[in-house]
């Protein structure tokens, strides 16, 4: 009798766990989501990438711009340049759980691969601020070049890469926050991206992208559309937002040349990819929307209205 009961209990438990695995996404609401910072109305639009619609609008600080997502910790850090603070959102409940005061404008954010730290560029005082995710406060900072705009972490070499808009350069720091290399870029480098042994900067004023080899420090310049703002790579392609042309430049990375352009909404600023859905999302500052593309053939799936002046400078998709 006892062993019969044990068996039943085990079967019930097993089926419970199996159903938990099967319905895992529903139980824990893990939907693929994009978090869109809207500078003009001080909100973040949460977009469900399966349903392709805005499912929630979260009030944050004034003029939200930069963003980074900590997938394992279910957190999203939003930089508000108008109120000089960071709103931390729990991505399970989509509610703000903390506001971190900075007293300087946080322009862009990125996290360390282990998600214990968030790096923030301090636009006004030329610093990188380091936030402890556990303590939810600034624990350290170090000086960098003028007007640090983009920041990203390269996992291959453990480098922190920073673009300095007003000194037309990119700086590479090691994990002890020591500068190991400073290289010239095109004029006004803003967005920065890295994958494997390469780093890329989008140079707003001279309509180019600089490709940097992180192994031998050689670099190449590629002509793109008018006023590029940010970029990323996917397989052998580079994808760049051209803010004035309302387009994306598609670069063949084998020959380092633009091979075609694709229309976006007005003033496209930033972009991110959902790997599993094979989806590219572009924020349109001018038309208060995002454009969602199928990455396979780069065709538009849908343009979705978000909030006023959508930006999302950084990684903004919850995988």
């Amino acid at each position, binding site marked *: 009798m006892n062993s019969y009961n044990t068996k039943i209990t085990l079967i019930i438990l097993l089926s419970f766990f199996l159903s938990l695995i099967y319905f895992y996404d529903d139980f824990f609401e893990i939907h693929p989501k994009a978090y869109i910072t809207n*500078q*003009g109305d001080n909100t973040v639009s949460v977009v469900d990438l399966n349903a392709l619609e805005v499912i929630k609008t979260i009030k944050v600080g*004034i*003029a939200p*711009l930069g963003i980074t997502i900590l997938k394992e910790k279910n957190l999203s850090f939003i930089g508000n*340049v*108008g*109120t*000089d603070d960071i709103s931390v959102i729990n991505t399970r409940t989509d509610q703000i759980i903390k506001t971190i005061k900075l007293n300087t*404008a946080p*322009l862009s954010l990125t996290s360390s691969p282990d998600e214990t730290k968030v790096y923030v560029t301090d*636009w*006004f*005082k030329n610093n990188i601020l380091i936030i402890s995710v556990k303590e939810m406060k600034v624990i350290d900072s170090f000086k960098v070049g003028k*007007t640090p705009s983009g920041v990203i972490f390269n996992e291959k070499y453990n480098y922190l890469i920073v673009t300095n808009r*007003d000194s037309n350069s990119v700086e590479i720091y090691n994990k002890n926050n020591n500068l190991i290399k400073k290289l010239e870029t095109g004029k006004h480098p803003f967005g920065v991206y890295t994958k494997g042994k390469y780093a890329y900067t989008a140079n707003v004023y001279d309509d180019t992208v600089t490709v940097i080899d992180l192994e031998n420090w050689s670099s190449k310049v590629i002509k793109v559309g*008018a*006023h590029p703002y940010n970029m990323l790579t996917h397989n052998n392609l580079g994808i760049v937002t051209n803010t*004035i*042309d309302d387009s994306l430049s598609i670069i063949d990375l084998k020959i380092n040349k633009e091979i075609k352009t694709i229309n976006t909404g*007005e*003033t496209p600023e930033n972009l991110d990819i959902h790997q599993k859905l094979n989806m590219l999302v572009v924020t349109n*500052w*001018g038309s208060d929307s995002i454009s969602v593309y199928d990455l396979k053939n780069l065709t538009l799936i849908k343009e979705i209205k978000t909030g006023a*002046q959508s930006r999302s400078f950084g990684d903004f998709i919850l995988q």
Partner: protein
Amino acid sequence: MRKFILTLLALTFSMSIFAHGPTPQKVQESITVSVTPAKAWSTVKDFSSFKKIMKIRSFDDEIMKIKYEMLKKDGPFSDYNAYIIVKKGANDNESVIQWTARFYRIYKLNPPIPEGQDDATAKAAVKKIVESGLANLKKSLASK
């Protein structure tokens, strides 16, 4: 008097908040005119006051959109880029002309921001340009 000081304090405080931030500003205005979109578009295209101070970036006859960059550098703003688009109105003889500008304030360094170089000043100046531009367009369409 106390109320006055409090208001002043509140104003100064709120202004210092809004004056922060290297953020692009936006002005968007539109007017409705009683002509066909084709006619409105042809007037927008040869809008003469444009050509001296603007660098035309693109014309698109299909979607009736012109994009330009302002070359004149004497306004209290920088990096001014704008577009004008003509859309269909409520009927065939009505059009909507929409003008959208993106720009930054002149002062891009650390606060404190010098007087007259903040976001609000830049926005007010561009609003004036856009509004008077639209008013001139309306006038020249009416005289045709």
